[in-house]
């Protein structure tokens, strides 16, 4: 029995060895990178930019996927803290849980940076965030001007619709605010030009967005102005509009003025094809660079609780500007690399 137990021990130990692979050599700096998921092009590109750049610098990166569960993300970050990592980068699930996670890291004297999705309390941690309101306003401004031209011809009020993200996410709130800032401003200046916007909840989930958008368009077939709070929903919008004959490029009758935010490869392609009029672009490469540089600077300087907000102003890429600015848009870069063909 004892010999068999010993044999079993060795067999299982070897099996465990295969499972865990070869242990790599200890490197000088270890950074823990916890992300909530990689559901959209934006997060895939952000993940790639951060991990590849860090590894190119010889930094070891511990990756943790929380599968959209903030409690799991907290557990994972606590695990990183226990392992004594030098720094932490997180893409949190929402602004509330981010506050708890940043506090956990700072209590353990480990510098932490929050990438793109800021905590509700921005006083703690390195927070790199796009100016969602500004980027949205720039995109919706372009769309509103096009809508105004249409209204002046038809004198029919434009019916706007916004696909709203999960509102516990400050990015979603900023984008919604930016949209309403522009629509309200135009409604005041041009009474009767815009009907009351329809809000469609998406929870940042394509299936939820599809169901709710189907219902909204069925109830309001006259919608002629759609803004999505994230570009990843353009395929969803297309699947709703196309069967109804509403998926029409600009310049043709029945074109729905359309815009979004993120600047992904799909949006780049659709702007070139004329289906989408504008998108607010988050400068992903700039944000990744800001995050890594500031965190590494804090590690080198021995700063354990660096607190700073680093802002990406963002910009709008429109049908009019795509020829000149496509190299600035991360989605166009991916598109040119054949991302959509993969």
């Amino acid at each position, binding site marked *: 029995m004892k010999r068999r137990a010993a044999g079993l021990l060795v067999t299982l130990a070897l099996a465990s060895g295969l499972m865990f692979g070869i242990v790599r050599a200890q490197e000088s700096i270890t950074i823990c990178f916890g992300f909530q998921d990689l559901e959209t092009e934006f997060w895939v590109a952000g993940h790639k930019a951060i991990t590849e750049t860090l590894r190119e610098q010889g930094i*070891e990166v511990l990756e943790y*996927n929380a599968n959209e569960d903030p409690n799991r993300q*907290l557990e994972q970050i606590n695990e990183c*803290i*226990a392992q004594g990592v030098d720094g932490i980068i997180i893409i949190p699930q929402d602004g*509330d849980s981010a506050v708890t996670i940043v506090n956990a890291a700072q209590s353990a004297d480990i510098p932490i940076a929050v990438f793109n999705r800021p905590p509700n309390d921005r006083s703690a941690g390195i927070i790199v965030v796009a100016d969602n309101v500004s980027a949205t306003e720039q995109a919706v401004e372009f769309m509103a001007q096009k809508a105004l031209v249409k209204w002046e011809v038809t004198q029919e009020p434009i019916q706007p619709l916004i696909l709203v993200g999960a509102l516990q996410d400050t990015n979603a709130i900023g984008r919604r605010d930016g949209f309403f800032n522009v629509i309200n401003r135009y409604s005041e200046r041009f009474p009767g030009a815009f009907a009351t916007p329809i809000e469609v909840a998406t*929870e940042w989930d394509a299936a939820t967005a599809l169901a709710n958008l189907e219902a909204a368009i069925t109830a309001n077939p006259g919608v002629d102005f759609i803004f999505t709070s994230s570009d990843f929903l353009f395929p969803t919008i297309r699947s709703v509009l196309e069967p109804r004959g509403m998926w029409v490029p600009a310049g043709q009758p029945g074109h729905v003025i359309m815009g979004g935010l993120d600047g992904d490869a799909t949006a780049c392609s659709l702007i070139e094809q004329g289906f989408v009029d504008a998108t607010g672009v988050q400068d992903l490469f700039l944000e990744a660079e800001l995050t890594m540089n500031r965190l590494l600077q804090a590690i080198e300087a021995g700063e354990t609780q660096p607190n700073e907000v680093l802002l990406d102003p963002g910009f709008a890429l429109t049908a009019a500007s795509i020829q000149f600015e496509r190299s600035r848009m991360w989605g166009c870069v991916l598109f040119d690399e054949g991302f959509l063909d993969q």
Partner: protein
Amino acid sequence: MSVTTPSSSPPPPALSGLALAQPGAAGRPRLAFWRRLLLSDYFVLYLTVFLFVSAAIIFPRIGLAGTLGLPTNISNQFLNMWPLLAVALGQTFVLIIGGIDLSQGSVMAITSVIGAMVMSTTLDPAMFDKSPVWGSILTAEGGLLRASPELAVPLGVLAMLLVGAGIGFLNGFAITKFRIAPFMVTLVTMTFFSAFALWLTQSRNISGLPEEFLRLGTGDIISVYLGPKLEAQIARRDILPAIAYPTVIALGLALLAQVLLKNTVFGRQMFAIGTNRRAAQISGVPADRVVILVYMFSGFCAAVSSILYSARLGIGQPSLGNNLMLDIIGAAVIGGTSLFGGKGSIKGTLFGVAFFVLLLNMLNAARLSPFIIDAVKGGVILLAAFLDVARARLTSREQHA
């Protein structure tokens, strides 16, 4: 009443070619060893210890002298265990009677939201003015008991527990009175209460929970410092919770579950129902009442888990528990609770949760890609389900022999 009635249900149709299950194998010492190991109540514990020791021997970096052996890591893993254990205890009860409770995740979500709506001390009007309960239950000054802060935490916790047990009652009632399959009933309640939690909050987290409540998720009762005293002041990160509130709450619940299961007629009735419901009923077991009580206990356990998770994260979260069902059922099944009913134990679930948490910890410490980790996790749960079938078949054959 007989609780040792052999199962009248046919053995699970799997593993027919497995040597373990071959008739006549009992006489062969090698197979007898494997059989004893597989059927042992401590199989998962052996596996857990083995996994830990083998990793420690082969990979010093993640072993006892490395990451896994760090006191902070061990302390973390225990803290990760308690909320999962709490909810898995309820699922164990349900599985023992041959049912399944898919609504536990949504019970966690709705109880998290309701507790926060009672206890919250401050709310941002811009975030919640679209909530259907804004202006009545929720205001800028906080939740329902904003005027009685001393009562907010006890009554908030009580509300969470009552709502959890109440949803369990609905599940049990529908299953026993309308004869609807547990899978379908709990799937419906899962969908309904998840949506209800999102509707109440308009999918926003409720923050501003009182400190007294947060302590339930993170507070230490006894803390320790392991190491030399080199400086006058010990850093907070070096102080570890030896006994924390979640430890006491989860182990207290486990003790209650153990007593119910092993030392009461109710526990024996559960096994009888899980083994053969009709036979149990003929023997005089009040099956409907037992089933309703078991689902109530499951909802209660989910609410306890919700308290621990909500307090730890500091928010009432309408999406709490959304992705947890696989972990809950996986931990119970790994612990030896049978998906076919009639078998399970509290210590098995405790070992199952420990194994699950340790496995994830080791995979993370081994610095594997998160995508591989998820695949391994799924594979382990599948293996546990496979072993469940093997054990059921083996037991059945031995009984027939």
